[in-house]
């Protein structure tokens, strides 16, 4: 079975030293090892942003797609070959900004895939503009007088839209994140792992220290039940002195491909395509 190190490539990450993406990368490689999949059985679709380079550093099939469009690409791959294990790795701008529409609609489908969001609350690769998760009032390069809109809450949106595994991790705690990702991958259905990711270069508010002080684990809360939608909703709204991480909500619901009758026997890609006979269909035109 593949180990964490088997998921390395020989490329040196170009992220800033201290970037939260390193923690995510470590956690990811660990989770891939835990998952039991081997590199060729995986397909990681990434967006455009600092996070997007991740496919350069993970030994697995990769698709570095375009900004905000990972989910439809991943959906197409999945529907064509649901035997591949699919992860999408996106930024907050990517996934919750320009990609918001796809995000909501993908969750309605409960596709069996895992979405990992490198949520640094900023557009970093483009040098620090506001993102949909930037806090209200925060000045950025594109909002020098402060952001006016309230941030999106990916977790309540996910609860509204039918994601069946909803979680938040922290890049500063790779072992915990590793477990979340591994569980998300093991989950059958659409799994969201929103990751608090410090960007040391542009985000001077949501630093590693900021999060270290505030995060707590839901699994440590006595009585917290990830099957309880109401409880999940309340925790999802919590953001301040205390910031919950861990599994917020999990539900079991048939996945999209479970309900596509034509995918029952085998993945599309395994069906022979030569010599298709259309004669029967032609009758309707007579």
């Amino acid at each position, binding site marked *: 079975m593949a180990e964490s190190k088997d998921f390395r490539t020989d490329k040196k990450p170009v992220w800033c030293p201290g970037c939260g993406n390193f923690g995510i990368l470590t956690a990811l490689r660990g989770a891939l090892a835990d998952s039991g999949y081997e590199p060729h059985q995986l397909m990681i679709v990434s967006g455009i942003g600092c996070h997007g380079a991740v496919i350069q550093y993970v030994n697995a099939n990769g698709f570095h797609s375009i900004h905000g469009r990972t989910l439809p690409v991943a959906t197409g791959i999945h529907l064509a070959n649901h035997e591949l294990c699919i992860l999408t790795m996106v930024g907050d701008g990517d996934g919750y900004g320009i990609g918001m529409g*796809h995000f909501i609609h993908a969750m309605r489908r409960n596709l069996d895939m895992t979405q990992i969001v490198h949520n640094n609350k900023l557009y970093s690769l483009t040098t620090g503009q506001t993102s949909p998760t930037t806090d209200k009032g925060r000045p950025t390069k594109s909002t020098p007088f402060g952001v006016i809109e309230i941030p999106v809450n990916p977790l309540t949106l996910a609860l509204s839209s039918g994601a069946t595994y909803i979680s938040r991790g922290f890049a500063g705690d790779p072992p915990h994140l590793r477990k979340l990702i591994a569980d998300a991958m093991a989950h059958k259905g659409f799994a969201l792992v929103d990751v608090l990711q410090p960007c040391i270069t542009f985000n001077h508010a949501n630093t590693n220290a900021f999060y270290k002080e505030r995060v707590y684990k839901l699994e440590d809360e006595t009585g917290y039940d990830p099957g309880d939608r109401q409880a999940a909703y309340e925790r999802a709204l919590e953001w301040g002195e205390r910031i919950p991480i861990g599994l917020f909500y999990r539900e079991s619901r048939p996945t999209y491909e479970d309900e596509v009758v034509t995918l029952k026997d085998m993945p599309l890609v395994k069906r022979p395509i030569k010599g298709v006979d259309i004669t029967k269909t032609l009758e309707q035109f007579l």
Partner: protein
Amino acid sequence: MEFSWMVGGEAGFGIMASGLTLSKTFARGGLHVFDTIEYPSLIRGGHNTCMVRTANREVHSHTGYIDMLVALNEETIHLHKDEMAQTGCILFDGMHEPEDRFGVHADISLFPIPLGDIVKDIGGRPIMRNTAAIGATIALIGYDLSILEDLLADMFKRKSEDVVRDNIHVARAGYDFMMDNHPGGSGIIVKPQDNYRRMVVTGNEAVGLGALSAGCTFYSAYPMTPASGILHFLAAEERNYNLVVKHTEDELAAILMAIGASHAGVRAMTASSGGGFSLMVEALGLAAMTETPLVIMEGQRPGPSTGLATRTEQGDLRFVLHASQGDFPRVVIAPGDVEECFQAAGHAFNLAEKYQVPVIILTDKFLTESHKTVLAFEPVPVDRGMLLDEAHLDRITDYKRYEITDSGISPRIIPGHRNGVFRANSNEHDEYGFDLEDPLNRTAMMDKRMRKLEQIASELPEPHLYGPQKADVTLLSWGSTKGPILEAMLLLKNNNITVNFLQIMNLHPFPLEKVTRIMKRATLTIDVENNKTAQLAGLIREHTGLKVDEKILKYSGRPFTPEEIANSVAEVVEHGRK
């Protein structure tokens, strides 16, 4: 024998269905048919028409005149009386000819028939007036009612026996009414011809059938006139062919899912009209950069913007040729009729896979939604190009997905093999797919990708020249104008003007040699296009340096009629002769 029939009425009256019923009735009698519909962008009200034209020779398009008009409301008569053939007739819902004869010319016969009452008598739905009208039509032209009866039986058998019975009843009532009241008929005679059972197919259906036959198993799209027909057709066939047909959240998702599916190894297609294609532009470049095979149908309608959503135009040629940033290879094919739609789909999948490029099938509303009779479709054998199989992959050690080769084509694989882990990358990349910013690599990769165009160009068939090698006039055109042009040529023959016609179906890579040759030896070249700016003429000049002598352009949102083209050509020639 030639016969041109039109039914008109409000949207919601079942105009389109009744046209198709008559078309099939003719087709089952061994006749050739072309039918076309006109309707505004709304569900009820507004004026809809369907023209069915039949003959005992191939029919390439509708015409500008009507032999028999079925008017489901009075407005239809007023709107179309000027299009009536000199000896035409009008069948309308009513008991009596009104005194003013609707202001219709005296040579035109009027045939009132109480369609509504006929339907009411058997408690049918008002939409069945059409069926009665078709029955009446058959009586008036001396056609064989039993063909219609058989057709109705086949059409409605899935619903219930009652429905079959009611429809046949109504058809017969219409027929009988005319036989009783006008036993002499209309003077027009249409007789069944042979025993070939021709199919009645739209461009959309032909593209869909071509895709099925080519082994396409993934279709993702967002509804948009005039491409929705493919979605409806393939969705209905999903379980017959083990397809995945996905109505996506928008056109961005539609093309991206198709790219994803193709990347994973299946044959995938999407389709839309110009507005939806606009939303696919960014992803088109993604397909190009990742060298993912992709087939897109773009069904044109009049722009800019929403424009005339249910009408026709050929305004997007330049758009699809140049959509998305940067230079990259693509193929643009514009089939001219239903057979060519089927073929184009087959070839498109082969080209897409062999060259790992996006292939655009450029059609329009006139082509996608008009029916034409076809005897049979010739399947295009599947050629997946350099797609390495498992056995090959088992032996490989250092797989380079984007290997720089002489042809520009790098062997492709289906992801999932142990020896074939790779990255598709929208960034410029090295042979493995890893990011690489190096200027030499960049130049080499651009050259590699663009190199494919040479081989594609040499593989694509040359444009076809219809008519004599030498002619007074050489028409140049592309896409759906083929039909009206072929019909116009017949008209011009009678006019003592010899015409040939170069149909440029493969627009990109551009068929430089043949076009140059034909242009150079032509006496008088006329570009015929359903757009405002003569986009093909510009393209010809860009590639050959040669200017067409004249242009016949139409951009009213309606297709050319053969008569319009013939008249314009005659005028040009006349003008030149003076």
